[in-house]
């Protein structure tokens, strides 16, 4: 059936709340307001205020309370409004959620799911638009996933709830209205596996989340110019599915990484390094990166557009790479 990314997440939330009494949702405005991005609209009415809990604007404490509730035997789903706001909860995420299992000598596990919106493109300027999921991917002890399709938005949430350890789901905010197909009986998907979204032979375009659409568009344009691009959707930033990346690069011999994070210290840098470590002798050209410009996100439309990766900049990067051969 045809549905939206937003509705797919809502359907997964509803299914999880129906299936498991230990599951509950909490976060800012998830209840009466229906979610800042309307993801949880209608859930309060269906499941009541015990299980759909509006919280104060206390990111650190409601994420920490999610950790504690998980330790206490529940399956909390915590919604943080945006990745920029999640920085207020970094202490709980990095110092507690990610460490407790190991630091307790394996006695504790934290089956916590945290969802948040990420990314730019909506003229929300420098405190609502950044793509910081790459920072989270730096931290061992947590799983970081970036659903880019309607199916993954649904299936990754269901899968996250089956994990015994914390899972962070980064939902690119421009994707919520995106339409796509969702099987009526769709279930959880495997976390940590990349997917080849479009096969090709001349170059591998590696991306994730909100950049997948732009990258597929770039691949279409390249096709019109006679360049066959393979598109790999990472789907998870931790763990990274290195074999899928290397298999593709071994076939195409060229790679461009498209990542909405800032270039310096970006997740694209990690992908590039993995290709260098595992696929250096397969390469016909250096790995290229298309990232966000190194600037706090500007408000004005033309400036924001200029700051973000676009299909056009991806095409340019690929063509430049191909020229290097000659």
């Amino acid at each position, binding site marked *: 059936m045809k549905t939206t990314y937003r509705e797919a997440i809502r359907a997964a939330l509803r299914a999880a709340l129906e299936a498991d009494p230990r599951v509950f949702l909490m976060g800012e405005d998830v209840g009466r307001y229906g979610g800042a991005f309307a993801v949880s609209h209608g859930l309060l009415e269906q499941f009541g205020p*015990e299980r759909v809990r509006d919280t104060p604007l206390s990111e650190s404490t409601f994420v*920490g*309370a*999610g950790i*504690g509730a998980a*330790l206490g035997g529940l399956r909390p789903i915590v919604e943080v409004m945006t990745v920029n706001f999640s920085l207020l909860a970094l202490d709980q995420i990095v110092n*507690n959620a990610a460490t407790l*299992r190991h*630091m307790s000598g394996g006695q*504790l596990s934290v089956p916590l799911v945290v969802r948040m919106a990420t990314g730019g493109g909506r003229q929300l300027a420098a405190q609502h638009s950044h793509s910081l999921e790459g920072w989270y991917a730096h931290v061992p002890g947590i799983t970081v996933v970036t659903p880019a399709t309607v199916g993954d938005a649904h299936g990754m949430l269901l899968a996250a709830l089956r994990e015994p350890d914390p899972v962070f789901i980064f939902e690119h905010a421009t994707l919520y209205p995106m339409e796509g197909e969702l099987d009526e009986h769709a279930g959880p998907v495997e976390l940590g596996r990349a997917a080849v979204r479009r096969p090709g032979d001349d170059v591998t375009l590696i991306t994730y989340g909100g950049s997948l659409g732009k990258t597929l568009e770039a691949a279409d344009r390249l096709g019109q110019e006679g360049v066959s691009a393979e598109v790999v959707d990472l789907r998870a930033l931790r763990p990274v599915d290195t074999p899928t990346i290397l298999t593709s690069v071994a076939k195409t011999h060229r790679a461009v990484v498209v990542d909405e994070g800032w270039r310096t210290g970006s997740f694209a840098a990690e992908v590039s390094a993995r290709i260098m470590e595992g696929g250096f002798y397969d390469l016909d050209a250096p790995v290229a990166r298309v990232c966000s410009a190194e600037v706090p996100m500007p408000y004005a439309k033309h400036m924001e557009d200029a700051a973000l990766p676009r299909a056009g900049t991806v095409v340019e990067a690929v063509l430049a790479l191909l020229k290097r051969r000659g």
Partner: protein
Amino acid sequence: MTPGRQPALPTRDHGLELLREMLRIRRFEEKAAELYSLGKIRGFLHLYIGEEAVAVGAMQALTPDDAVVATYREHGQALARGIPAGSLMAEMFGKASGCSRGHGGSMHFFDVGRRFYGGYAIVGGGLPIAVGLALADTLLGRPRVTACFFGDGAVAEGEFHESLNLAALWKLPVLFLCENNLYAMGTALARHQAETDLRRKAEAYGLPADAVDGMDVLAVETATRRLVEAVRAGNGPRFLEARTYRFRAHSMADPELYRGKDEVEQWKARDPIATLAARLREGGLLSDGDLGALEAAVAAELDGAVAMAEAGPWEPVEDLLKDVYTGAGRP
């Protein structure tokens, strides 16, 4: 807090039990300091000497089903909660037989079987965890209490304010227990708080709050029992400030430039162990022989604990990445 009012004498058995528990902590900490000097214990070591009445008194009010969340100065709580001294000592030695498999050290004791949910070394970081544990109990209909220990330094953290508010808003069964030892590391309370009556902060969030002489184990026990009873009855969270003092430095690395020896000596005159012992003697409940027997039993226990720590195995290096994730884990 009602100054000058002395709690009633306990029974002899209970009085001796309180004394024994405080002595165990005192001697354990002295032994830890000695082993630190010998290089057996490394990292940061924060001793609880002087504050024993708080953990021991408070723990009397908790049942085995209740949860404890503590700080990096948690040896007292861990011992009073019943975690074997050998398991704690082994943890500080970094042994795999330690209560956290040697992953945590002095600041991160865990024992899930005893519902001891850890020592948290980011000041204030344990409070949201306690709120969440209590939320789980509430949603699962379990009549349990979560006791959350933290210091006066934590009241400056946002998580203190957020957690008290959320616990009160949701009427969660948490006892917030502030061990006010007057110093956030080296910064005196009056140098970091505009309002030094900590009860007022809790009251501002709708929590009934009390303060107690943290050098008097009987007073701490009485106050904690009263508040835990209210929490367990479903009346929402409570706040207790225990006014106490650490006799030793903040950690082994602290040269104590920020406080005078006179001040320390004044507080030492209120030593919680000596205070209880004197009261028990006055009441005819303690003899020299009793005290000697207690000391001997504690010494024997600690000898055993150190021997157990010495003999404990090291975690194999091949296990380095174990327990980052559950089971086989992720690459």
